């Protein structure tokens, strides 16, 4: 089956999810202050193994470092916690003082997992690293020229550059070079000078505003940066060609999440409740491919059982028909998407979580989807 639904807890909207490196355990947050870990059982069902309960307010993002096995969570309570699993299997937390006065919105470990970046509503990105001497996470701030809430961050493979999307309709690339913990980076296509918080590039989503940025993603080599905005658009900036930006305005509802699944392929998902494929050609131009499943917004309705119920419903609801379901697997907007199996060059399976509380695993290598992928013009 190309798309399979997994039940991880109650049918309450899932805010975010992250996988352990062996992909046997998933960390999810159901729109509350808890982070729940579910482990897959041999029969295919999911058992809750741990609850990480330290935040006071809603958890907005989770990231799980594959090599060091550390989990980082950030919340509307303006804090982040780093969680480490002890020999007894229990998760111990360490508070990270982000020094912000608004909610933390998004968090990602750097590729080498010695730093993590937290976006916030305080118009600040906190770059956190471990001070080995004091065994304490220190936060350094990137402020200029951020004018509004940071909604999404993604790391360049060189462990220094960070892309950030913002509600001021702009996407920016910053340097997060911390001389205390890492060697001076060599030049990349994004520039040569990289002091901490240096703005390497800035892109406006649209001369007419363009809507909030919902997700940013570097490709495998870090030469291209893709993002999706609330104006139903997807754009790719190509550093080697001189920061040329190519944007595609779609006929669909806005996307909320974005992944590179191949050197020229993007997968975007959001308010249409189904992931959509996009292709980027050598000139950087973006073209829309197929949705991972058809179904659209079919309203399958069942007529009420009796004449009495029919009139009762007409009176109460203004319509005779009682039920309505979307034709897609997800019944609500997809807000988080991860590569489950594979990598940015060749992703084989992808996971999505949505406002319907469902976790869906998409097998990109399965028959029907594989056909769609190869049908995309290369």
């Amino acid at each position, binding site marked *: 089956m190309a798309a399979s639904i997994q039940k991880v807890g109650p049918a309450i909207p899932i805010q975010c999810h992250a996988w352990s490196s062996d992909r046997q355990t998933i960390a999810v947050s159901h729109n509350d202050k808890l982070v729940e870990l579910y482990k897959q059982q041999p029969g295919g069902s999911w058992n809750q193994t741990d609850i990480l309960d330290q935040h006071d307010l809603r958890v907005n993002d989770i990231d799980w470092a594959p090599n060091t096995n550390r989990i980082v969570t950030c919340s509307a309570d303006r804090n982040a916690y780093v969680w480490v699993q002890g020999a007894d299997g229990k998760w111990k937390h360490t508070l990270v003082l982000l020094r912000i006065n608004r909610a933390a919105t998004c968090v990602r470990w750097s590729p080498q997992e010695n730093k993590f970046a937290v976006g916030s509503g305080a118009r600040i990105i906190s770059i956190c690293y471990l001070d080995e001497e004091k065994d304490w996470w220190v936060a350094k701030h990137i402020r200029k020229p951020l004018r509004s809430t940071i909604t999404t961050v993604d790391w360049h493979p060189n462990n220094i550059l960070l892309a950030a999307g913002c509600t001021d309709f702009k996407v920016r690339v910053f340097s997060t070079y911390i001389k205390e913990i890492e060697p001076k980076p060599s030049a990349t296509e994004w520039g040569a000078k990289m002091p901490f918080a240096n703005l390497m590039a800035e892109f406006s989503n649209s001369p007419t505003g363009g809507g909030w940025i919902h997700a940013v993603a570097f490709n495998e080599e870090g030469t291209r940066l893709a993002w999706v905005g609330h*104006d139903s658009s997807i754009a790719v900036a190509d550093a080697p060609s001189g920061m040329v930006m190519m944007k595609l305005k779609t006929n669909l509802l806005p996307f909320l999440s974005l992944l590179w699944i191949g050197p020229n392929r993007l997968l975007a998902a959001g308010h249409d409740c189904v992931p959509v494929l996009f292709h980027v050609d050598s000139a950087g131009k973006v073209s829309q491919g197929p949705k991972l499943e058809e179904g659209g917004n079919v309203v399958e309705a069942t007529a009420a059982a009796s004449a009495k119920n029919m009139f009762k419903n007409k009176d109460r609801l203004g319509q005779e028909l009682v039920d309505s379901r979307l034709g897609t697997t997800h019944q609500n907007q997809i807000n988080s998407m991860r590569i489950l199996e594979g990598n940015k060059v060749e992703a084989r399976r992808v996971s999505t979580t949505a406002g319907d509380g469902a976790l869906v695993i998409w097998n990109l290598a399965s028959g029907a989807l594989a056909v769609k992928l190869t049908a995309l013009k290369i």
Partner: protein
Amino acid sequence: GDDAAIIDANQINSLLSSNKNVEALKLFLSSSPTGVKDPTSKKAARDLAFRILMAIKTAQMDGAISQLDQDSLDVLMKFIYAGFESPYEGSSGHLLVWHEKVFSATGIGSVVRVLADKRKA
């Protein structure tokens, strides 16, 4: 940076009087009419848009739409909604037909951009 509006009202009016309505529409939409800032000029732009949209008959709409690019269609949708917002006598019916035809060309994306874009009609 924002494109400042460069609406050539005289040219557009003269096109309308010679019944070159679709030309008038194309010229209007490509003059960055959403870039107008002050309220008086904004009203003037809306009035001009309204006159053009009402002048084009239902039978001419499909032809007009097929000559517009994606950006122009987005601007057109903004003025259609502006027309719903401040209706004139009998305008809404005609605008509803416009809406239906532009929608089938652009899908829901252009409606999202009416709401999400900073620059309004």
